[in-house]
């Protein structure tokens, strides 16, 4: 393992320390707890709060989207491990200003159970909560088992759109409905070229041969659909596009936003070459692209590879996607 770290066991602590030193003017830790990152200054009272949480190792997911126009709080777990329900509950309590709290997070076993438990604790203290789980990864289960799918990069769009709806003053049920509507129109699939290394494990979580590509791999190295011989950028784009297009009706006149997301070790140049191919496939169908997102949004440490997300829009979703948002890791200004 070659990583620019100090002691592996200090990894998460030191990442948060770095984030607070760099962006402490826009983020704060709840009672100094490095596992609960909150928006600073807090949102206006009466706004529905939106929180997320999950394991570390995916920056900017999850805490990178805490900020104006997006999230109010994030519970931080160890690398690839859920935060505890107690931390989630403390966060929910800290961000609620009476309008209730939307828990918006990826569909993973540990996160589900802990958030469910945190919501029970919140309900006991008369805090209203709603849960919407992100399940955008088409490679993680077939369509008939879509409720089992994992949440990956598409969650960034959900944070953006739900965040804008909450800023606009919608109530908890309405914000949850907007998030769900967005997610019903979001699909993602990824490919991996090399593995990642969890600092405290010290060796790669899996291996991919020099001339191979793993199709549909998850952001923790969950096995994908198949291993293929290495392919060109155009062939990868077309493979992913076909899989997603089979589930979203993309017709002449449809409008979408496209996210090409690097997993950590893939250059922006390569992301743009793949974006170009996806944009051409969409243009050939007469589909218009609105606010493309090309860059690193949901990573898996030093994993090489990328994911493509397609988000089918209508006028309402477009308006929420366009609305201003600014966090230390995301801005709507440059999209």
């Amino acid at each position, binding site marked *: 393992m070659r990583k620019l770290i100090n002691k592996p066991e200090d990894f998460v602590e030191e990442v948060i320390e770095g984030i607070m030193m760099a962006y402490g003017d826009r983020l704060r830790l709840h009672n100094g707890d490095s596992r609960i990152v909150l928006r600073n200054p807090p949102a206006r009272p009466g706004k529905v709060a939106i929180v997320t949480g999950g394991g570390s190792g995916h920056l900017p997911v999850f805490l990178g989207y805490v900020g104006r126009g997006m999230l109010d709080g994030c519970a931080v777990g160890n690398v690839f491990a859920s935060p*505890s*329900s107690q931390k989630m509950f403390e966060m929910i309590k800290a961000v609620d200003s009476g309008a209730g709290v939307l828990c918006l997070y990826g569909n993973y076993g540990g996160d589900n*159970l802990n958030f469910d*438990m945190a919501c*029970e*604790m919140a*309900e*006991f203290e008369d805090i209203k909560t709603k849960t919407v789980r992100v399940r955008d990864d088409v490679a993680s289960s077939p369509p008939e088992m879509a409720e089992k799918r994992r949440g990956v990069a598409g969650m960034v769009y959900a944070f953006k759109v739900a965040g804008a709806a909450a800023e606009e003053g919608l109530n908890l049920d309405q914000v949850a409905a907007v998030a769900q509507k967005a997610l019903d129109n979001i699909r993602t699939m990824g490919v991996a070229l090399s593995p990642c290394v969890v600092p405290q494990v010290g060796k790669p979580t899996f291996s991919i041969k020099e001339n191979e590509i793993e199709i549909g791999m998850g952001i923790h190295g969950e096995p994908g659909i198949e291993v293929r011989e290495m392919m060109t950028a155009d062939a990868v784009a077309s493979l992913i596009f076909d899989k997603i297009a089979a589930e979203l009706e993309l017709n002449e006149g449809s409008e979408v936003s496209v996210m090409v997301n690097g997993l950590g070790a893939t250059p922006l140049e390569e992301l743009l070459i793949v974006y170009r191919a996806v944009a051409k496939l969409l243009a050939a169908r007469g589909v218009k692209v609105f606010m493309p997102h090309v860059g690193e949004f949901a990573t898996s440490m030093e994993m090489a590879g990328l994911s493509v997300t397609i988000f089918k829009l209508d006028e309402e979703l477009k308006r929420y996607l366009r609305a201003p948002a600014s966090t230390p890791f995301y801005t709507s200004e440059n999209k």
Partner: protein
Amino acid sequence: MKASMLRTAAAAIRDIMVANKDYLTALDQQNGDGDLGITMVQGYSALAQMLEQETEQDLGKLFMKCATRFNDAAPSTLGTITSFVLMGMAKALKGKTEASLEDMTAAYEAGLALMMEKAHSKPGEKTILDSLEPAARALRANLDKGAAQALTAAAKAATEGSEATRTMKSVHGRAAYYGEKSLGLLDGGSVAGRLIFEALTHIAG
């Protein structure tokens, strides 16, 4: 039922789990990961210890504290599932400092309902529910006979329910990989459920 009785109950459940730790572990090793005995001892020891010093009289708040403490001490799947039962009971008992047998039965039913919802499980799937759920029905059917008799009936139903897991196939957790091979095996979780009611019978009698 008052707060002080919960302390006696938790201590009795802890003692029976300690006495059966190796048995539970052996059962779990047949088709699980073998941590069942440890989880139950850790969870109920933490509860008993907490309740020795706890002064909270509101049964709802007390059960909520138990749920949180249990999850902290035993964050495995069965530990989390147990916490959900306690949370469901907490919600039903909120604001009460004294609860009748009927209140406790209703709270217990609410706890089981919450657990089934969160764990996406139902009776007949070779889990702890296969002893806990028959016990709930027995309590409900024997409400008019008083706590001692109702708990004896619940313990009997839990024992029969646990035995019946031998005829069931596992569908949850690691045990699910064993599928058909799990037929004939007694489910460790259901035994843990039976032991809870056995302990409660001793203190009620």
